């Protein structure tokens, strides 16, 4: 952790300009990257689940949790999931490395 104070910088009583406060220490950059990707994985899992939920709901009744867990995408749905996942990952990595062809 940075040795900097644990609160956002603000003008002091003398009215001097605030010093810039960095919430994350430079050595936390890797951790931030890992956290982003870990979060991205969770987001993808949920998005994937949501898409399948829509399909299963259309085909069956209300209690679909187990059906979703066991649902194996057919070729058409798998193709759609593949395309959405690819676009999702490209968008994510594009934010980290703007301008890089992916």
């Amino acid at each position, binding site marked *: 952790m940075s040795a900097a104070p644990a609160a956002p910088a603000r003008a002091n009583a003398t009215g001097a300009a605030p010093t810039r406060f960095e919430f994350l220490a430079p050595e936390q950059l890797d951790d931030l*990257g890992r956290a982003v990707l870990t979060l991205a*994985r969770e987001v993808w*899992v949920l998005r994937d*689940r949501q898409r399948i939920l829509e399909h299963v709901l259309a085909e069956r009744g209300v209690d679909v949790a187990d059906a979703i867990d066991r*649902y194996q995408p057919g070729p058409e749905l798998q193709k759609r999931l593949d395309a959405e996942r690819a676009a999702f990952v490209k968008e994510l990595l594009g934010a*980290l*490395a703007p301008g890089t062809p992916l």
Partner: protein
Amino acid sequence: MDFELRQRGRASMDFVAELGLNGARLRAATLAEVKSAGLAPDTLAADLDERVAQVEGALGGSKAFHTYALVADWGSSTHGKLAIEAFEQVRDEIEPRLKALGEGPTRIRTKPGYQLPDYARGVEFHRTTGGWDGHEYMGFIHAELIHRHYVYKTFPGDIFAQRRRVLDELPDREFTRVLELGASSGHYTRMIQDKFPRAAITGVDTSVRFLEQAQRVANEHGWTWDLLVAPGEDTGLPAESFDLVTSYILLHEIPERTIRGVFAEAYRTLEPGGWLLMTDVTPFWAQDRLSEFWSYWGALHGGEPYWRESASLKLDELCRELGFVDAKTYGLGGKPYPWITIARKPERAG
């Protein structure tokens, strides 16, 4: 064994594989930046450590490079955990079948007095949490989840067809007593059995968890393999008892002194006239300096502590030092991977 992942496990494995594919694209973009920074294979430093500093320095401001590094790090540190999680979601359903496949003609025995070699102790190869024996079903998890849902999708070429194809490099004869060193979970072993249906196969590995998976593969097919927990450099098997000694992707996981021991053990256990076929990663000397950098850099961050010393060896020369003849080392089909070393133990004189 057929089984289906649950939604969370399937989507997680799909995601980490997708990330891996994009990692390759990021690296390709980085290559262009290396060139535009004025670095080329023939101008890079000869010393590998110096070269690492040189390339990393040149790419210090490259977002593609840092993103590639991040993606590679996350993939290598996470894929094993995700695979275990995916397994646990279906464990109750498939565990009875896994246990049942432990019964059958193939048995596992352990070399008397066996202890895990020092070079493998505490090492998390491929950054697999807990190492090769880090989970009760690690052999199954690695073979059926990591290999099929991650490596197969992200590694260039067909990793299963490659295992089958290298066997065609052997002379056109029927091998009947085969020793596989580093038999692991049996992916290569089954290719050997397919190629030589009458062969009696002995598979050696230091990981009992992986041999348990090889045992399931064998029992599922009704094959009788002799699976032995032992180090490949000191199997304790009888001398001159095999007509083929082979390995696939073992050598880069062991240090140089052990590789020498493995080749010496192969020579000892081969009968006169028997063949040696070892397949592994591309040696450094067969790559230009930039490709060598990427190989090493990936190994450095990917849980491959012995890659550098392994890839620095000239295995055909090692074969000749040990007495093998007709030694050759080359990339299959003229490509850099898989890399083959093939040799023959001479016939007995007189």
